[in-house]
């Protein structure tokens, strides 16, 4: 890819990492640092932008350029940076409260514009930094400090939201699975444009074992639906379950009960987002069979390159001239 030779330590800053011991963020940090050694992009061209929350401390621990900004607004800052500097590799690290609650508007607009940014949404289904309130991805009925009688908020499915926001790349992975995380990161970096990656991340202090259905030794084999491009969607320890399209929606069936031709073959490059969307609806919260991997990966011009192209096109008729501008509305001379 290039002659850059990095080790993980090249991406570690001199700051002490201060997440709670056992936090899933450590694993994601290690996965990202390891991945970037192989990414083929010079370290000085990488910028990590974050908002507010536990995950938002991420840039301080990366020995790249970094900007820890304000709550929910990281996609806006990243948008300005990526569109003014198309030469940079711009990453947004955010959480479920940051991206989906206070910053929901910015997330959907950055995705629909296809700004060339990679968005890592650490979803732990809880507010960690403010010490344990429910979040927009917490399940209905969740008892927290701010919902002592149980949450009455219906949660977002972040992957569904991203697909509905016209995102050109949408994926989901798990903090504990470093190989899968790095595979998804690789797909995201190879994609030109916005890449949205939901990372299920365990908060062992305020919401421990939220993803046990996907990480527990016994549960994970039956519940992980690994999406692989060009492959029929089959899962379970011995491939006993599969996904088919029926009545206009994706459904889980016993593999033995269907004709193999009926099994849905995964194709993230479909222009129409409908199939990716219905796959995202196989689980609304990760308490049963849940798809992981790349849901959608289509090609669309990026906002930054289109912005740049308009300037290039305009300047192809000759560069602008300030004196000419000042005289453009008609002049008269006083002698």
């Amino acid at each position, binding site marked *: 890819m290039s002659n850059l030779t990095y080790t993980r330590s090249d991406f570690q800053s001199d700051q002490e990492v201060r997440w709670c011991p056992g936090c899933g963020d450590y694993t994601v940090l290690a996965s990202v640092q390891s991945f970037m050694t192989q990414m083929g992009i010079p370290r*000085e061209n990488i910028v990590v932008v974050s908002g507010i929350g536990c995950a938002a401390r991420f840039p301080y621990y990366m020995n790249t350029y970094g900007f820890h900004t304000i709550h929910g607004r990281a996609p806006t800052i990243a948008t300005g940076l990526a569109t003014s500097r198309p030469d940079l590799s711009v990453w947004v690290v955010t959480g479920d409260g940051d991206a989906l609650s206070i910053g929901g508007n910015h997330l959907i607009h950055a995705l629909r514009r296809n700004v060339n940014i990679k968005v890592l949404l650490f979803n732990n289904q809880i507010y960690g930094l403010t010490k344990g309130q429910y979040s927009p991805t917490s399940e209905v009925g969740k008892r927290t400090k701010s919902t002592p009688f149980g949450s009455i908020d219906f949660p977002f499915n972040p992957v569904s939201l991203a697909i509905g926001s016209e995102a050109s790349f949408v994926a989901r992975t798990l903090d504990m699975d470093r190989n899968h995380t790095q595979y998804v990161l690789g797909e995201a970096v190879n994609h030109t444009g916005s890449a949205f990656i939901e990372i299920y991340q365990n908060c062992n202090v305020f919401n421990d074992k939220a993803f046990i259905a996907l990480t527990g030794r016994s549960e994970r084999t039956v519940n992980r639906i690994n999406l692989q491009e060009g492959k029929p969607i089959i899962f379970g320890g011995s491939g006993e379950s599969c996904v088919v399209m029926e009545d206009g929606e994706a459904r889980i069936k016993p593999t033995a009960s269907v004709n193999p031709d009926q099994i849905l073959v995964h194709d993230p490059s479909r222009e129409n987002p409908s199939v990716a969307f219905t796959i995202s609806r196989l689980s609304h919260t990760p308490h049963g069979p849940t798809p992981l991997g790349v849901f959608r990966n289509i090609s669309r011009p990026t906002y930054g390159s289109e*912005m740049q192209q308009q300037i290039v096109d305009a300047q192809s008729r000759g560069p602008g001239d300030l004196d000419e501008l000042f005289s453009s509305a008609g*002049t008269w001379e006083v002698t």
Partner: protein
Amino acid sequence: MQLAGNRFADTSAAFGNDLFTLPSFPAEIRAPAGTLPGVSSFQIQIADWDISTSGDRPDCLVAMNPAALKTDLADLRQGGTLIVNSEAFDERGLAKAGYEDSPLMDGSLNQYDLIEIPMNTITKEAVADKVSGRSVLRSRNFVALGFLAWLFQRPLEPIITWTENKFAKLPMVVAANLAALRAGYNFGITTETSRSIFQVKPASLPAGVYTSITGNTALAWGLIAASYCAKLPLYYGSYPITPASDILHELARHKRLGVRTFQAEDEIAAIGAVIGASFGGSLAVTGSSGPGVSLKSEAISLALTAELPLVVVNVQRAGPSTGMPTKPEQTDLLFSLFGRHGESPLPVLACATPSDVVETTIEAARIALKYMTPVILLSDNHIANGSEPWRIPAAADLPDISVPFASSPNGAGGRFLPYLRDFNTFSRPWAIPGTKGLEHRIGGLEKENISGDISYNPDNHQLMTDSRAWKVANIANDIPPVEVHGELDANLLVLGWGSSKGTMGAACRNLNREGYKVAYAHLRYLNPLPANLGDVLHSYEKVLIPELNTGQLRYVIRANFLKDAYGLNKVTGTPFYIGEIRDRILEVLES
């Protein structure tokens, strides 16, 4: 009417008059025609001398319908010339405006020099073979414009050229409008030959090449000029809002000059994007009006503590909340100075007139870049939409405001220290992504002095807070002292800021000519204030501060200098009249 007003302004400028305009229109896009809320007006003062306001009481009023007459007649001076479209004063038109009897018939207009023109008929006859149906009467304003061109002896050529260019794709519209224009002009020649015409000779302005410019266009051009002077690409992020949107529109046209414009999903995203662009090394600017700037407040504090250069434009309008979006006020001064959480001082500059905007904008950018700080640049609705001749500078004569990016480590062992301050300016280095060896992290958490690492150390927070404040206060040594005009040995100093400059100056100059001892000064820099301002204020027994608010600069002056001041304050959605300031000056002189 805005079109007719602007054409009259342009042809007057081309003729060589000095001029100042005051457009006024409803916030509604197509407010019902002929009703009182639907009245759109355009006031212009032309002169053969250097003027600074759109005038107090017009000498001549054109009322296209009864509603316009009812809304604006009170402004016309006694004995002034009143031109009406007589055919609009029918039963329906009178009813819409709430007249029981026609003011043309009941003698109520006897004190004016009334000229009734059947504009509908003239228009219909003039355009009969060119357009048909409902389009016919659209050219009525050109009849009025043609008549005014005759009455004030304006050349028609600039109007003709503009019309041909503007409607180039619609030749029938060009033909109809020009036919109406000539019909109006000829109506003057043929029917009013005995009437005295107004003769306003060209003004003796300083030599140079001039263009007619509105405040919003000037702000856009000023930003482009600042980007040229700073040798940095311009990135303008904004969300549509009256009356700032025209800055975005103007900038969006100039891609050949490398301008990037970003219409964001909201006000917060607009400033977020420009903070990102600033981090990346652009001249970053966001523009809005009061309600929108409120939404940006949190992000301004981020830029302030991250110490990134940024210009935040606030084209003030009448508030609070939606208020009166198309009317001017100077009510965001205290908001600009204090409207943020935490200890967060930043430089504030205010434009004075359309012709002052380019220079003030470049100055705002200079301060932002040199001191690595957000700067608030105030304009208002009066400046934004008003127009004035502007003497064009040569690009080569503009100041160099460029600052170098950091290119190599500034600490021991090849370490980059993002908060190691410059000895003179207290500014921190600007190291942009892509620079090898200067990888660093910044953010909203308090930073350790020099290293920029996160710090909760009590003494460090005190030091950083003091450093940020000192950095801004020290800019007082890098701006010109406030200049006092008029009678320097006066007892009274009139002090102003922003768009009241012209009116205030005119009132004081008039009184000086009459022998009154009055001095006056105007502030472009509202924070920090000029270093000599305290001494100036204390050298006068009395200080009067006219402002379109309830006393915001007065509050600042009292707080900073323990100097009491008289106020002249109003929030009526209209600029000051010279007469209002004059009356108040005389009152204060006698008190």
